[in-house]
C-alpha cells in the first residue's frame, strides 16, 4: 500500500476515539469484558490490519544495535533505582498478582496493548514520507498521552489543585517524555526499543513480590528523568552516526554533560523528601518560638533514644503528622524510654508522653524562611484540627 498521510491521520483519530471511549465510564462500566476481551483484541486486530496493509518497513541497521543497548541499560537502571529507593524508604507488598497465573493474565490484559501500541506507532510514523514524519510522530505522541490520562479517575472525585499537580507530575509528564522518546526511536530505528523498555520495566512491576513505597515525587522523578536521559543518548548516537552533522553539533548533544547536574537535582530532591539520615522539616506552627519560627526549616538527624537527652529538640511521630518539641523529661519504665516534651512557646507540656518508638530524630540547626513553599502546599490539604494537634502534641 502506498504511503498516505491522510490515511495515517484517520487511523490516529480512530485510536483517539477508541481510547477516550474506553477511558470514560461507557466502557469502564463493563470493566471485565473491556479488560479481558475488548481491549486486547482491539489492539491485536489493529496490529494485524496494519501489518497486512502496510507490509514491512526498512530499519536503520546502523542505529539499531546501539539504541537497543542504550534502551536495555536504561530499563535496568530504572529497575535498580526503584529497588534502591525502597531500601531508603520502605517496601510494601506488590498489589499485582505476581504468581504465574496473575503474570499471564497481566501480560494478556496489559502487555498486549503495550506492545501493540508501539508497533502501531512505528507503522504509522513510517507510513508517511520523511518530511511529514516528525509531525505524525508528535501527533501520535499527543494522542497516546491523552489515552494514558485516566480521566475516569477524576469522575466523581474532588479535583483539588494539589491532586491535579500530583497527577500531572506523576503520570502526565512521564507519559509525555516516554511518548516523545518512543516516537523518536520509531523515526530513526524501530519499535523494538520502545517494546524492550516498556516490557522490561512493566515486568518488574508484575513480577517483583515487593515494591517500594515511593512518594509521588520520587515516582515522578524516576519515571521522567530516566526516559529523558535515554532520549538524549539516542539523539546523541543518531547525531554521531550522521555524517552530515558537525563535530560541534555532536558535542552539544552529548548527554554526559548534563548527567552530573541531573544527579545533583535528584539527590537534592531525595534529601528534601527525607530519604537520607539527615532531612529537612518545615515548621508549620509557632509552638517552638523563639527557637523555631513558622516557615523555618529544621534540619533533623535521624537517631535513636540513646542519642537524645533533656533539652534537645526532637521530632516525633504522631498519627498523621510529626511534632518538633523540646525534651523536658526522659524516663524509663519496664525497659522502655518515655519523654515528656513541650513547645517552648506553649504554656504546658504536651498532652501525651512520647514513647521511644515515636522518636524520629534530633534537630541540628535551622534555616530561616526556606520552609514556606512546603507549608503553602501542606496547608491546602491539612485540616484545622491537625494544626491544633501539632501545637499541643495531641
Amino acid at each position, binding site marked *: 500500500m502506498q504511503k498516505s498521510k491522510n490515511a495515517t491521520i484517520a487511523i490516529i483519530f480512530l485510536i483517539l476515539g477508541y481510547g477516550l471511549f474506553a477511558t470514560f*465510564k461507557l466502557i*469502564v462500566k463493563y*470493566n*471485565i469484558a473491556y*479488560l*479481558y476481551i475488548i481491549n486486547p483484541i482491539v489492539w491485536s486486530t489493529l496490529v494485524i490490519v496494519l501489518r497486512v496493509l502496510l507490509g514491512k518497513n526498512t530499519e536503520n541497521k546502523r542505529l539499531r*544495535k*546501539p539504541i537497543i*543497548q*542504550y534502551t*536495555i*541499560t536504561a530499563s*535496568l*537502571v530504572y*529497575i*535498580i533505582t*526503584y*529497588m534502591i529507593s*525502597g531500601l531508603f524508604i*520502605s*517496601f*510494601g*507488598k*506488590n*498489589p*499485582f*498478582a505476581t504468581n504465574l*497465573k*496473575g503474570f499471564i*493474565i*497481566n501480560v494478556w490484559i496489559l502487555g498486549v496493548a503495550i506492545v501493540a501500541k508501539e508497533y502501531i506507532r512505528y507503522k504509522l510514523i513510517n507510513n508517511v514520507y520523511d518530511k511529514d514524519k516528525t509531525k505524525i510522530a508528535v501527533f501520535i505522541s499527543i494522542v497516546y498521552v491523552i489515552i494514558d490520562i*485516566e480521566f*475516569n*479517575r477524576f*469522575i*466523581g*472525585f474532588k479535583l483539588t489543585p494539589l491532586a491535579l499537580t500530583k497527577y500531572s507530575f*506523576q*503520570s502526565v509528564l512521564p507519559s509525555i517524555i516516554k511518548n516523545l522518546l518512543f516516537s523518536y526511536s520509531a523515526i530513526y530505528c524501530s519499535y523494538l526499543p520502545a517494546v524492550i523498555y516498556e516490557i522490561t520495566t512493566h515486568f518488574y*512491576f508484575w513480577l517483583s*513480590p*515487593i*515494591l*517500594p*513505597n*515511593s*512518594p509521588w515525587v520520587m*515516582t515522578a522523578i524516576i*519515571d521522567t528523568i530516566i526516559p529523558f536521559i535515554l532520549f538524549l543518548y539516542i539523539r546523541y548516537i543518531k547525531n554521531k552516526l550522521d555524517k552530515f552533522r558537525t563535530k560541534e553539533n555532536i558535542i552539544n548533544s552529548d548527554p554526559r554533560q548534563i548527567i552530573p547536574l541531573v544527579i545533583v537535582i535528584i539527590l537534592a530532591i531525595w534529601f528534601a523528601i527525607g530519604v537520607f539520615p539527615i532531612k529537612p522539616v518545615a515548621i508549620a506552627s509557632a509552638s517552638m518560638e523563639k527557637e523555631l519560627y513558622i516557615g523555618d526549616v529544621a534540619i533533623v538527624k535521624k537517631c535513636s533514644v540513646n542519642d537524645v537527652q533533656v533539652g534537645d529538640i526532637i521530632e516525633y511521630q504522631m*498519627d*498523621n503528622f510529626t511534632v518538633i518539641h523540646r525534651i523536658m523529661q526522659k524516663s524509663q519504665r519496664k525497659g522502655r524510654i518515655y519523654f515528656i516534651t513541650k513547645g517552648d512557646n506553649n504554656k504546658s507540656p504536651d498532652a*501525651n508522653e512520647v514513647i521511644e518508638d515515636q522518636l524520629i530524630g534530633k534537630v541540628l540547626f535551622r534555616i530561616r524562611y526556606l520552609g514556606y513553599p512546603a507549608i503553602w502546599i501542606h496547608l491546602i490539604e491539612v*485540616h484545622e*484540627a*491537625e494544626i491544633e*494537634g501539632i501545637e499541643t502534641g*495531641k
Partner: protein
Amino acid sequence: MKKSKKRNYAIIVLIVLLLAMAIGYAVFSSTLTISGTATGSTTWDVRFTNAVLLDASGNADTAHGTVSYTADTVTATGITLSYPGDAVNLRVTITNAGNLPAELTGYTISETNGTNGADITVTPAVAAGTTGEVIAANGTCTQDFVVKWNANSTHDSAVKNFTVTFTYQQKTNEVNIAPAHT
C-alpha cells in the same frame, strides 16, 4: 575498546547487580521492612474516600470524637463513649480509582490508648479477606468498624485514638465471580 563492547559490559554489570539484589531480597526478606501494600505503582489507586462516625441509629455522630482520613489512613481521635457497653460505628469508604479490580486482604488497626483506652475495642464488622471483598475498577466499598466500651469496665470514662489502614491485591478470577462491591 569498541563503544559497542563497553555498552554490552555495562548491561552485563547491571544484570548482575539486579540479580544480586534479587538474591539479597531472598536471603534478607525476613529482615526487610515490608509493610502494607506498596504505593510505588501508578496503575493502582485504591484509597479511602470517606470516613464518618455513626451512632446506633446510623446517623452521623460528632459528639463522641473526630475522624479524618487521607488516601491510605483513617484517623479517629478522642473517641469517648458514654458508658460501659456503649458503642459507635466508624464507617469508611474505600474507592478503587484504578482500572484493575482489587481484593481487600486485611485491615491494620493501630491504637493509642487515652485514659482507660484499653477498655475500648475496635473491630471490623467484617474482616477483610474472609469474604473476598472485591472492589471493581471505579467501584467503592464501605466497611464498618465497631468501637465498643467493654461492658464489664469499672471506669468512669475511657478515651481511644486509633488509625485504620488496609491492604489489597489484584483480583484475577473475577471473570467468573461477581465482585462483592461494584
